[in-house]
């Protein structure tokens, strides 16, 4: 790697941290320590420059619960589809047509508009060999990019941070929510979680303070690790956790105290910056009212404020539609399409849309046949969406065959391995080699 880059990163980090911090707070020795160690580690790896102004940004959007792909990108002319779904099937009149064979769910007007504007790619028939139908296990497979038969300790984004972002600011990965997604779990953990930027700070107990040291100054000092601590545990402690409503255990190899100390430092370093940005930057588009929209609004402000983040993570839950699917999915997909559309409008107004790519995923699709309760049960392959103005819009992959002889246990069969999509995003968008991150070379599916 270029040593200048690492120095630049280091200076950038120290400078931004100092500016964000309280005036009385000087850069502690442990930060300098961190960087000398991380810098030497980074010397062997393809570390990327992280600044908040020029690098490309990936927004991962998890649709938790297993979205019914068949009613999202609908094969509306297919007889097998209508035969298997007499109650919940969508007709040619209802769908928003992409072409003469497939169309978006009627609630996805936002996606249709993005598609027509050349900003959305639909990748059809995504999955993986030997699909698992457990929410937890299948989510874990997607989060760690593992084979179905293998347990991977770290997440695919965590491995990206390890391989390509050593020495980066902890905000290189930002999860909107209370729990870390398992995909962030890494050997050398970075990434922060936040829910509400106003409360993402130490709130002083002595607001009418007149004399002496403040509680905030003392809090800062008491939450700085001992000198040398970070150098020893930096490569071992770990981050990770639950993903939206579906959990994954945190991997680690240091003690619980090491982990807590590291998290405390990351919290301190990131909180001033994030609050400053979220106060300074305003949204420039009107969003619908939903949890997902609130998350994306915050992401847009953090991007606008130049947080040096490469990966944002947001999630939307509720897709486990075993009963009365029609109403639930209608509401969820409307939220999804409208929120993402508003998000892209916002980024466009900021002038940042060309730096941002949104990628959706869900742990599995659902059965071809509807069940007796007006819903669908856990299935396998489903589509993914990639959104951004550098995206090659259009349909990618092939719609899986719905013919009874082509189904596996009642499920449609995947055509594209999801890790090919990850490889395409890593190589084509984040500009890093995918094989060290995904464990082997998958043929990259490039949509940008």
């Amino acid at each position, binding site marked *: 790697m270029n040593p200048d880059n690492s120095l630049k990163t280091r200076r950038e980090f120290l400078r931004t941290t100092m500016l964000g911090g309280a005036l009385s707070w000087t850069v502690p020795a442990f930060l300098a320590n961190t960087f000398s160690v991380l810098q030497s580690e980074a010397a062997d790896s393809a570390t990327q420059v992280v600044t908040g102004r020029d690098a490309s940004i990936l927004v991962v959007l998890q649709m938790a619960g297993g979205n019914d792909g068949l009613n999202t990108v609908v094969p509306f002319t297919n007889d097998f589809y209508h035969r298997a779904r007499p109650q919940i099937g969508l007709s040619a009149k209802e769908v928003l047509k992409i072409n003469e064979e497939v169309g978006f769910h009627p609630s996805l007007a936002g996606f249709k508009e993005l598609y027509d504007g050349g900003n959305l790619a639909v990748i059809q028939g995504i999955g993986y060999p030997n699909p698992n139908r*457990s*929410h*937890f*296990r299948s989510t874990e497979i997607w989060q760690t990019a593992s084979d179905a038969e293998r347990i991977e300790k770290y997440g695919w984004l965590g491995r990206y941070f390890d391989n390509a972002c050593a020495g980066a600011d*902890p905000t290189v990965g930002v*999860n909107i*929510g*209370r*729990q*870390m997604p398992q995909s962030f779990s890494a050997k050398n953990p970075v990434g*922060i*979680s*936040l*829910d*509400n930027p*106003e*409360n*993402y*700070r*130490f*709130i002083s*107990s*002595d607001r009418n303070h007149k*004399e*002496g*040291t403040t*509680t905030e*100054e*003392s*809090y800062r*000092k*008491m*939450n*700085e690790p*001992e000198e040398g601590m970070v150098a020893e545990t930096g490569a071992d402690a*770990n*981050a*990770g*956790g*639950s993903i939206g*409503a*579906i*959990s*994954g*255990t*945190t991997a*680690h190899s240091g*003690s*619980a*105290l090491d*982990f*807590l*100390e590291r*998290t*405390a430092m*990351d*919290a301190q370093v990131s*909180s001033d910056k994030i609050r400053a940005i979220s106060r300074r930057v305003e949204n420039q588009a009107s969003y619908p*009212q939903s949890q997902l929209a609130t998350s994306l609004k915050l992401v847009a402000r953090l991007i606008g404020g130049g947080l040096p983040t490469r990966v944002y993570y947001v999630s939307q839950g509720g897709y486990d539609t075993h009963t009365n699917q029609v109403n639930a999915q209608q509401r969820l997909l409307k939220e999804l399409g409208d929120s993402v559309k508003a998000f892209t409008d916002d980024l466009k107004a900021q002038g940042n849309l060309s730096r941002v790519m949104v990628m959706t995923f869900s742990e599995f699709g659902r059965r071809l046949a509807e069940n*007796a309760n007006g819903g669908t049960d856990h299935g396998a392959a489903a589509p993914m969406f990639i959104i951004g103005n550098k995206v090659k819009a259009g349909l990618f992959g092939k719609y899986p065959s719905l013919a009874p002889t082509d189904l596996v246990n009642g499920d449609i069969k995947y055509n594209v391995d999801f890790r090919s999509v990850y490889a395409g995003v890593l190589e084509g968008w984040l500009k890093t080699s995918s094989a060290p991150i995904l464990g082997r070379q998958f043929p990259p599916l490039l949509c940008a």
Partner: protein
Amino acid sequence: MLKSLPNERWNFTTAAHLLNRAGFGGPPSEIEQLASLGPEKAVSSLIDYEKIPDHGTNPEWAKPDPTRADRLAEARKADEQTRRQLLQAEQRTQRQRGVELKHWWLSRMAKGSRPLQEKMTLFWHGHFATSSEKVRDAYLMWKQNDLFRQQATGNWLRLLIAMAKDPAMLVWLDQAQSRKEHPNENFAREVMELFTLGEGHYTEKDVTEAARALTGWSYDRINQQFIERRRAHDDGVKTVLGNTGDLSGEDVLEQIVAQPQAARFITAKLWNFFAGEDPADDLVTALADVFRRSGNEFKPLLNVMFRSEEFYASSIIRNQVKSPVQWLVGSTRILERELPPPFVCFGLTRNLGQDLFAPPNVKGWDGGLSWITTNNLLARYNEAALLVQGDTSMLKGMNIAPNPAVNGQLQNRLQNLRLRPVEAVKILTEEERSDKGKLIAALEKRLLQAKLSEKQEQTLQEYLNSQSNLDEATILNAIRLMMSTPEYQLT
């Protein structure tokens, strides 16, 4: 393996560890009391809780509601608008009771006379993770909680059978809808994957066959109780885990519990909950052996665990991340203060990632390090200010409830909320309140039962030095600061 801790190692630190893990911790006086008993009597004082009277009362609505089914039927028949109003009213009632229920349980943990019984109830709630989000009936949630409590340290098979017939569970994992024409596999799968054996110790065939055997175990909505529907039961021949015959639900559960893996699975999970993560293989073998020899009874197992040298290893003591419930209940106990009001407790625990009666999914809370994110750590530091100083500013703007309308109402109630701060005079002697060094030492003993790092102690000392006098406000700030450290999150 599992040799008893020698008497000479029984002291304030080991007694504190026992009270922290087998209960929810307590003030120094309680720890000293346990320390004076010696290990055998100390463990017995927690484990033989049947001898201790329980004066707790149940929520007044904790009984079947004979009019509920009629009300719901009435609502279904009504016109669209009336129906919506009736259902909303019903939901409001259930939601209100849900908040009361959480507080009722937290109060039992914080002030009840049987801490281990409540700690085991918490273990079972995380294990059989059932959520009111789907069950939507506070009475059923209470009833399941009471079942955990009544059978907290009893027999494994008996508890499993009771759980399989528990109304909230029947609804939660769809067993109520399972009939021989369409067996529902949800409960049959989770009972093996998550409750008893773990993935890889049964086959898909075992799941489908067990589901057939369990058909007919259902839920009677009118009387809000378990019902066996004989005509829905599949009485054909099934094979589950090598056992063939016209198996019933009981037969299947008995066969599961008889697997050697069943004893390993549940004892490892208990060790993980009470002691440390990922117990070594030979430790699990020893624990499972104790469990099986006692006829799959939990009390003898817990007795051996809490007496064992392994439980008091230095790698175990103060190396567990407090769960949000442990953090909240434990903090009120060591600060000797009341729990905040019900809707505040609801907000506090939910904000830290553990909403009682609403686990994220059937796997329960992941626990351990996953309790901690940058967000949740800062939230703990700010909630400490609420408990110590009665400072409610961190609740403003917090999404206390998931529903925006409910959240708005709660935010309104916050306007008038005044919380009492901790009383320094209650928890510190006059000497400790006037000498900075003694103050720090006393707080370390009370809050951590361990020392802060030298640098942290020094920072705290500097803070105290910079204040013109050691008044109540300064002392409370010092307490809040000590709770706003990585160290305080451990137990």
